[in-house]
């Protein structure tokens, strides 16, 4: 994970139109954007993430601020694009002609599935939370936003964000699947 100084330099480079600047920003923040969108937009996460980055590129000259503000701005865009993609996917589902049969996953995909298995499992547990708690936890834990930025992204008050985060974490702590993992881990470890 690059430092804030490195991100600031990348931001400046991207503003100048330097590909390497975009590469650093994308590498640093895309995984978090994608994970957040997997909770918000489920299967449409990849499309929503692409739309998010394209909009970032288009509007970058209008953005003023440092890496901290950029993070908040990025996730605000991600949230809107995620909601858009969910709506679009909903419309597609109503039209069965457009349904694409799932292809057989290749060897690479299988390896990747193992690599990100725990993350996928964790995201699956987050997705069981009420939407406001799930988003608050993702933005605080994965996106690394502070309470004020999270409140801005979600259009809520800070107090509401803190309570949603707390309730989300509490619910996860009591989730039988999560508890089961803990028992497995400790018994394996001993």
């Amino acid at each position, binding site marked *: 994970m690059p430092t804030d100084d490195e991100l600031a330099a990348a931001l400046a480079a991207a503003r100048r*139109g330097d590909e*390497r600047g975009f590469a650093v920003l*994308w590498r640093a923040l*895309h995984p978090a954007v994608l994970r957040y969108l997997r909770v918000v937009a489920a299967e449409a996460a990849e499309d929503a993430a692409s739309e998010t980055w394209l909009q970032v*590129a288009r509007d970058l000259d209008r953005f003023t601020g440092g890496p901290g503000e950029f993070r908040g701005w990025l996730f605000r865009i991600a949230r809107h694009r995620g909601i858009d993609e969910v709506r679009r996917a909903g419309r597609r589902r109503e039209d069965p002609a457009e349904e694409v049969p799932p292809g057989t996953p290749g060897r690479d995909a299988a390896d990747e599935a193992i690599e990100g298995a725990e993350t996928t499992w964790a995201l699956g547990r987050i997705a069981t939370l009420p939407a406001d708690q799930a988003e608050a936890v993702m933005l605080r834990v994965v996106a690394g936003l502070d309470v004020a930025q999270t409140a801005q992204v979600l259009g809520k008050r800070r107090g509401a964000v803190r309570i949603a985060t707390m309730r989300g974490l509490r619910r996860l702590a009591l989730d039988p699947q999560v508890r089961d993992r803990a028992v497995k881990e400790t018994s394996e470890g001993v």
Partner: protein
Amino acid sequence: MRLADALLHAMRTWRAGRSGQDEADRLVAGGRSGPGDAGLDHLLDALRAPATTGELRGEREMAAVLAAEHRSAALYERPKGRVRVQVPRATRTIVVSVATGLAVLSVGGTAVAAGTGALPAGLQQRAHRLFSALGVPAPRTGPTATGPTPGDRGSAASPTSKPTPTALPTPTPPATATVAPPTAQVVAWCTAWLTAENGGKPMNGRDRKDLAAAAGGADEVADFCARSGVSVAPTTTPAKPGRGSTHRATPSHPGPKK
């Protein structure tokens, strides 16, 4: 047994209120929740796990696409967001007033032109149809073609013969309108004359002279107009009702001056 302990621990840790929120902040910041909540620690670690190769696939292509998108946006889309021109309030006020003034003048001017019968024939006809009650005359087809001659020559034979229905159709070029133009002219004259007789808008001096010439004398006008079948509904031209008549008289002011 261990599960029950863990549950109890969790219940104790996650009491509602400020302590719960502080605990949440601590966990979000990367703090450990302790042995009782190892599952939650594991879940949060998994959420924060380093990017997988799948998540970072296509970095180069993506960077190139983003740089291109940024370039094209800078070329084509910048004016969209920034084109808002700041116009000072004073300037805006002036522009709006001038525009309003011009609109009033053009509408007013058209009204005056209609009142004096100075509009092009088509427009004049329409204005007449709409506002004849206000004294807007019908188009003057005959005299406009010959220009100032009828007024200059007075009761000379050639201009007077044109408007009368008995005149030959040769002076009016459009074949389809051979009968209509003199009739329209006579109707316009007679309408204006009757309106003036009823106390409405006074008749244009030149028109009055032309009408008298066409009728064969000022005394013949009444009969002439009666023969042409023109009548003015008395309701539309009440006999000199103070304000109403002055109102109607305004457009005709240029008339008496001539």
